[in-house]
């Protein structure tokens, strides 16, 4: 079934209903554009405003902004359609625009649009370490989602580890919900952050938010330890403890500093990785950001390098919810103008651009304050699993380099299968790229990260649903779409 308006395709398909996508959709609709807001979740809000039905927002930050956007969503319901439960598996170009294919309730749905705003979220970046596959080890965002989205506290005695300002936020939420948080173990030394006073002064709200989390931790007597890392998790069938160690500036373990800590749960994250498969499907240029993540390149108007594609939020550089809102608004304004809706007010654009500049500087300062340092490679053992899906160990990855002569992560993937499993390298892509590059004594390049990031089918898709869209298929057998043959992807220009 093709989801488009009776009078033709949507002006805009906004992919992702987190802060960036919501802002883009509401802004573009307010400017008069006809918008489809496509999202896999049951409710708008994305990961940042993940909530339960009837949630009053007490535990959320920026809830007032979320309320405003929800009101905007309702106010423009005539031309802004929220499509929940739509997991995008492919976006392709047609003669006149774009076609976004989703999996919805066991059927394929197609959203046609003149332009697209890609506002896909990000997820926790992971570094492998011994024991990280044990049940009871969660991503920091996973522990957060469990609490905010489902009202469940991940465990009783919880260690929080990794790097970045997200860790105190997660730990504070868990402590407030009644868990015993045995410590926040920050591998970095964020002191460098306060040495950038101008950037910090320009973003007082963000700073106050961070201070609030630290006050909450203090109140619950949760220690916040810097230059300290969880370098192993222990347990037979589940986590029963972790090894915490002091690390130096390069994150190498300080000999003799290791100590065992009893806990039943570990929440861990090393920054964020943007969901970049849709921009890659659309042929958008990508680059390696300051934080080491592969991100799509956006211009001043939030346009990707492929015509008709706009980018907002983490997908063009991890920067948090406030920056996502700004970028979303800008993308919404420019995209709406490009498809023939209202011309953006230059004064509004100037104000947003100023705000974006300050917020990006703040994000860059955070990235510089919380870098991932290569010493984590020393925490690994030969038998440590790198790829959780295909159960590929460090030893196997290393042998692909030393025995078989692979020099880049894509070749390692072809030899040894890291990144070939169901998650398609979302979890291990960064670590595999780092691991292979480190064999040559360097950091992973953008090209190498791309080698682990391309996913022509973004979500596992039952073959029967794919086949139902084949013009030769038995019309009785499928409830999916029958795309009209005139504008299918085969007419797409070569990239």
């Amino acid at each position, binding site marked *: 079934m093709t989801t488009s308006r009776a009078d033709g395709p949507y002006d805009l398909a906004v992919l992702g209903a987190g802060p960036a996508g919501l802002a883009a959709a509401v802004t573009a609709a307010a400017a008069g554009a006809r918008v489809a807001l496509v999202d*896999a979740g049951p409710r708008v809000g994305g990961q940042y405003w993940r909530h339960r039905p009837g949630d009053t927002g007490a535990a959320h930050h920026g809830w007032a902004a979320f309320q405003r956007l929800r009101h905007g969503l309702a106010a423009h319901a005539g031309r802004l359609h929220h499509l929940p439960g739509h997991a995008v598996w492919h976006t392709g170009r047609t003669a006149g625009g774009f076609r976004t294919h989703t999996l919805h309730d066991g059927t394929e749905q197609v959203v046609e649009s003149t332009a697209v705003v890609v506002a896909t979220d990000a*997820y926790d970046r992971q570094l492998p370490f011994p024991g990280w596959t044990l049940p009871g080890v969660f991503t920091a*965002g*996973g522990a957060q989602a469990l609490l905010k989205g489902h009202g469940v506290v991940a465990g009783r005695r919880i260690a929080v580890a990794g790097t970045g300002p997200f860790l105190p936020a997660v730990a504070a939420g868990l402590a407030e*919900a009644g*868990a015993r948080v045995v410590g926040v173990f920050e591998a970095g030394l964020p002191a460098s952050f306060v040495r950038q006073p101008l950037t910090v002064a320009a973003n007082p709200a963000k700073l106050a938010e961070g201070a609030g989390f630290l006050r909450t931790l203090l109140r619950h007597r949760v220690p916040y330890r810097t230059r300290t890392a969880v370098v192993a998790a222990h347990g037979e*069938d589940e986590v029963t403890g972790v090894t915490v160690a002091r690390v130096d500036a390069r994150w190498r373990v300080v000999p003799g500093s290791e100590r065992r800590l009893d806990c039943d749960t570990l929440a861990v994250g090393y920054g964020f990785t943007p969901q970049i498969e849709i921009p890659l499907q659309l042929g958008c240029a990508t680059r390696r950001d300051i934080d080491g993540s592969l991100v799509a390149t956006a211009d001043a108007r939030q346009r990707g390098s492929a015509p008709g594609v706009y980018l907002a939020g983490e997908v063009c550089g991890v920067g948090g919810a406030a920056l996502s809102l700004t970028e979303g608004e800008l993308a919404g304004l420019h995209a709406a103008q490009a498809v023939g809706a209202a011309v953006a007010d230059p004064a509004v654009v100037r104000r947003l651009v100023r705000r974006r500049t300050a917020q990006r500087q703040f994000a860059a300062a955070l990235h510089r304050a919380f870098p991932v340092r290569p010493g984590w490679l020393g925490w690994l053992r030969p038998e440590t699993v790198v790829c*959780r899906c295909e159960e590929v160990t460090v030893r196997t990855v290393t042998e692909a380099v030393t025995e078989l002569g692979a020099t880049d992560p894509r070749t390692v993937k072809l030899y040894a299968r890291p990144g070939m499993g*169901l998650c398609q390298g*979302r979890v291990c892509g960064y670590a595999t790229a780092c691991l292979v590059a480190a064999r040559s004594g360097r950091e992973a390049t953008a090209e190498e990260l791309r080698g682990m990031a391309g996913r022509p089918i973004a979500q596992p898709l039952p073959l029967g649903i794919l086949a139902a869209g084949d013009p030769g298929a038995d019309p009785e057998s499928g409830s999916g779409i029958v795309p009209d043959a005139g504008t299918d992807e085969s007419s797409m220009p070569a990239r």
Partner: protein
Amino acid sequence: MSTDTRAGAGGPAVPRRPSFPFRFDELTIEAEPGQSIAAALLAAGHRSWRRTRVAGAGRGMFCGIGVCFDCLVTVNGRPNQRACLVEAAPGDLVRTQEGAGRDDLAC
């Protein structure tokens, strides 16, 4: 049905909403409306509900947002369902998944 608070095996007290039961292997698990299967299992103290194809290692929820595919379970006969995304429904039959979860097709 209950609206009290609980200190479930999975974690300390959090306000509850009226719950309903579903089956997990031989057990009955209570879930709240809108809760994922993973959340309900964790709240009931279960952390592992899959055995991997190669090492037979136990796995449960990891990313919690549908990215990592570690929390796979068989739901009402359909394998490879992400427990962190699928909302529990009254009467669901959830089974621990062994390997690829398609042993019925093996030949």
